[in-house]
């Protein structure tokens, strides 16, 4: 941590969870305010209404099923995206030919709205779970490959030289040097990849799903059932926060060696 004044010094001793709490309370206050303001109350169901929407018995079970199935889709799509992005990013960084052939297409596709390529995915892989996972895979892959590729390009040349001198072949250099040296970029990729997975959920579940959080949000939106829409958004947001905590945990484990100026 930076050196700071007295007050900030004192404040920096407040434990993290207190800040989280303050942040949450502030959020709730804004929310209640929005729910009470006539202009925005139409889209902002009050917290109470949402709780009611949640505990409506008949929905309770559905919601858990929806969460389960959507989590599966998100994690599967993300996992495949990650596993594919790492070697592709590496090959792009390493082999000029590969990069020249692949890069334009990655750049082209990453700008296309997911909603626009859904028909194509259905035509290609059908309407089963595979279609949903594929949509999420594409979205996460594109985000991750861009950031991991930058990471691969940024690896300190001297470390690669050192590894070569010690007898490392390309595979070893990749796994033992490029990957650990790119961790900060991989973390950006993972964070944005997970976010992309969740924001694409609605689009993914438009490929012929009858359950899932995205579907729930979308169809409730069609009927202007705002408590359920907000409920869905909050659940997606909370899933995102949980993902973030996991990423943070991994980050602490993976970057303990790093010299950084942030506490």
């Amino acid at each position, binding site marked *: 941590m930076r050196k700071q004044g007295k007050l900030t010094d004192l404040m920096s001793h407040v434990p993290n969870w207190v800040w989280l709490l303050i942040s949450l309370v502030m959020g709730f206050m804004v929310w209640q305010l929005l729910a009470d303001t006539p202009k925005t109350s139409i889209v902002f169901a009050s917290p109470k209404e949402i709780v009611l929407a949640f505990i409506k018995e008949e929905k309770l079970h559905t919601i858990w099923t929806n969460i389960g199935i959507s989590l599966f889709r998100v994690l599967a799509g993300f996992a495949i995206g990650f596993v594919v992005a790492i070697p592709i990013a590496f090959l792009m960084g390493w082999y000029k030919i590969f990069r020249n052939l692949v890069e334009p297409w990655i750049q082209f596709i990453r700008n296309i709205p997911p909603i626009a390529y859904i028909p194509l995915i259905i035509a290609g892989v059908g309407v089963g779970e595979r279609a949903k996972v594929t949509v999420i895979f594409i979205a996460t892959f594109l985000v991750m490959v861009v950031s991991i590729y930058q990471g691969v390009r940024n690896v300190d040349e001297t470390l690669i030289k050192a*590894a070569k*001198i010690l*007898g*490392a072949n390309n595979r070893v250099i990749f796994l033992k040097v490029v990957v650990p040296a790119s961790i900060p970029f991989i973390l950006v990729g993972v964070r944005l990849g997970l976010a992309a997975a969740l924001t694409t959920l609605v689009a993914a579940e438009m490929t012929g799903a009858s359950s899932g959080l995205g579907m729930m949000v979308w169809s409730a939106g069609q009927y202007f059932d705002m408590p359920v829409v907000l409920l869905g958004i909050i659940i997606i947001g909370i899933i995102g926060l949980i993902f973030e905590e996991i990423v943070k945990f991994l980050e602490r484990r993976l970057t303990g*060696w*790093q010299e950084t100026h942030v506490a």
Partner: protein
Amino acid sequence: MAGNPCSMKVRAKVKIDNVKKVFAGRNGETVALNGVNFNIEENEFICVVGPSGCGKSTLLNIIAGLEEPTEGKVYVDDKEVKGTGAERGVVFQQYALFPWLTVRKNIEFGLKLKNLRQDEIDRITKRYLDMVDLKEFAESYPKELSGGMKQRVAIARAYAVNPKVLLMDEPFGALDAQSRTQLQSELLKTWEEERKTCFFITHDVDEAIILAQRVVIMSARPGRVKEVVDVDITYPRTQETKMTKKFLELKRYIWGNVYQEYLAVRK
């Protein structure tokens, strides 16, 4: 052991053939090396001295196979150098430790690639941790080390893989006088035992004379070989050797020679 080099069949281990290196920067080209020619014989210990920026590190990188010469060639065992090879080990001027590995893991890095048994790896790692006095810091990360400690890790890491040719770029530069003396003795002892071919860059003329069979003096940029001085002091050499008349004579000669180069840089 400390045999007279003349009694051995001497052949060129490393042949540097008319090497030129030009760097194309944003502000025109820099000729780092031009027409560099010399051989390193099998089992020979060569030290290189020369003014800052004269191309010593560049030459080492070319021998290591990390850079390609713009012109000319380098041969190791009569084979042209194309990329790196496990037979050539390097201690880098700027350490190049893997920051995400502990001291122990840094030293083990090369060993693991040799498919050695774990107990073998442990034994070797321990030996070199001892040599550089870093047992206590085996589980520390590079960021937790002082400058000199980092350099010692880099030395241990290069030694551990036991290459046939050792290329060292000011390996003792960041060390205090005592560690330096200690590691010089260590290096001398090892070399006298194993006669590993060594290419050693230093800016300390004393160090060059105490270690080398021949000292290569490089001229100011563009780097050329100005003179190669034979150090006809028999091994085993110790720190006491530094007090002998021969040593002091050589020192004066080399120093004077290098100083001219230095004045040339100052114009």
